[in-house]
């Protein structure tokens, strides 16, 4: 674990936050669909042109937003996700064999991220037993029920997005934009947090912090959030 100075966690922008990011690295990206994704970091990685990326992310964005931007430029070599159904370019690259894909049950994905951050190298889960997900994995019965052994991820970089953050790296998420961000913040060897509102140390209520600063190595004030809605569903006012 790097001995990052907590007083110098603040970087000016996403580009500065990418120091040390190299081709062929594994990276985690928070978010569920387009909700709570690190928009600024994704844009900066696209600009930097980093290639050979192994992405750990619940989804793969859509054709023209989120991780879809990095798929379009062929920066992603491998995708580890639970659901990738909203992305035609993704499907094309996968079926043509250009893109490696590893599909993982969503709860297992979440738990493997947490395990990485929590120093738990492996755990047993019932999810995927009897399916192709269990192929080659150790099976063991607990309380009469079969489980499979799953391992913690490793991620040199994790990119997360929070609602509010302070300069010590403490993070608070909003609504369902929390999703995978907390566990990925825990898991990253270098965790980059972009926030909608960066505040001074002491301005966040210590009792309401979702991710303590100890898990965050770099933080910056994000800009120009689009926060695109994937499935706009509404009801009429008359209802």
């Amino acid at each position, binding site marked *: 674990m790097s001995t990052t100075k907590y007083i110098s966690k603040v970087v000016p922008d996403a580009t500065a936050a990418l120091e040390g990011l190299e081709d062929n690295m594994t990276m985690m990206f928070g978010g569920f669909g387009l*909700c709570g994704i690190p928009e600024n970091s994704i844009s900066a990685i696209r600009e930097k042109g980093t290639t050979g990326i192994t992405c750990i992310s619940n989804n793969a964005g859509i054709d023209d937003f989120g991780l879809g931007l990095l798929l379009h430029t062929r920066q992603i070599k491998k995708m580890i996700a639970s659901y990738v159904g909203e992305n035609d370019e993704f499907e094309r690259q996968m*079926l043509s064999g250009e893109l490696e894909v590893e599909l993982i*049950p*969503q*709860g*297992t994905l*979440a738990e493997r991220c947490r395990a990485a951050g929590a120093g738990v190298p492996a755990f047993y889960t019932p999810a995927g037993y009897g*399916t192709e997900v269990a192929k080659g994995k150790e099976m063991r019965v607990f309380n009469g029920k079969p489980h499979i052994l799953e391992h913690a991820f490793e991620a040199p970089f994790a990119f997360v997005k929070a609602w509010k953050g302070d300069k010590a790296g403490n993070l608070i998420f909003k609504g369902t934009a929390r*999703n995978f961000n907390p566990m990925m913040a825990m898991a990253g060897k270098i965790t980059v947090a972009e926030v909608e509102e960066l505040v001074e140390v002491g301005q966040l209520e210590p009792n309401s912090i979702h991710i303590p600063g100890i898990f965050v190595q770099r933080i910056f004030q994000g800009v120009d959030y689009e926060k695109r809605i994937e499935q706009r*569903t509404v009801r009429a006012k008359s209802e």
Partner: protein
Amino acid sequence: MGLSKDQIAQRIAQELSDGWYVNLGIGIPTLVANHIPQGVNVEFQSENGILGMGPFPFEGEEDADLINAGKQTITAMPGASFFSSELSFAMIRGQHVQLTVLGAMEVSDNGDIANWKIPGRMVKGMGGAMDLVASAENIIVAMQHTNRAGESKLLTNCSLPLTGVQCVKKIVTDLAVLEVDPERGFVLLERAPGVTIDEIRSKTAGRLVVEGNIPEMQL
């Protein structure tokens, strides 16, 4: 004839008990929320991190930070809570959710389910479905009895890659309500209004158990 999608959801809603926490999958299961019986209070869990999910927002009140597992904009009910995916699946794997309703492409007569992949054709991923079916004590499948080609989706063995094994407890289709007895097969409980046992039998490829008088569903 058979039930409409909305009627399938309506029939499933009759299975709800007061105080249950319920996870509804994408598609027909989502419609169940529109048919909660009076006097029954349930809370909906969406695996992306909300308990106490409410209806869609009024136009103009959509919040990009408030969606369900189908990526649809939603609202939060009073008493709702937000949490991480890790805690969300702790609820699911830890069997704190009393009922899971989800769709399926195939179900076998011992309770296996396939709903995430058609090799070489559809590769969307399993999302949270494998965690849900592996852990839920009470799983109801909501689906059409046959696929678009008219072939039965209730089989002896699933032909598609499995999502989970021996996990489905009950199935509500446009034609029938069936219980899965892993030893005996699909036990017919109810018929859709106007649907005959013969029709159900002809459209069920797996073992079908018909015992005694089979009532029509009450909707």
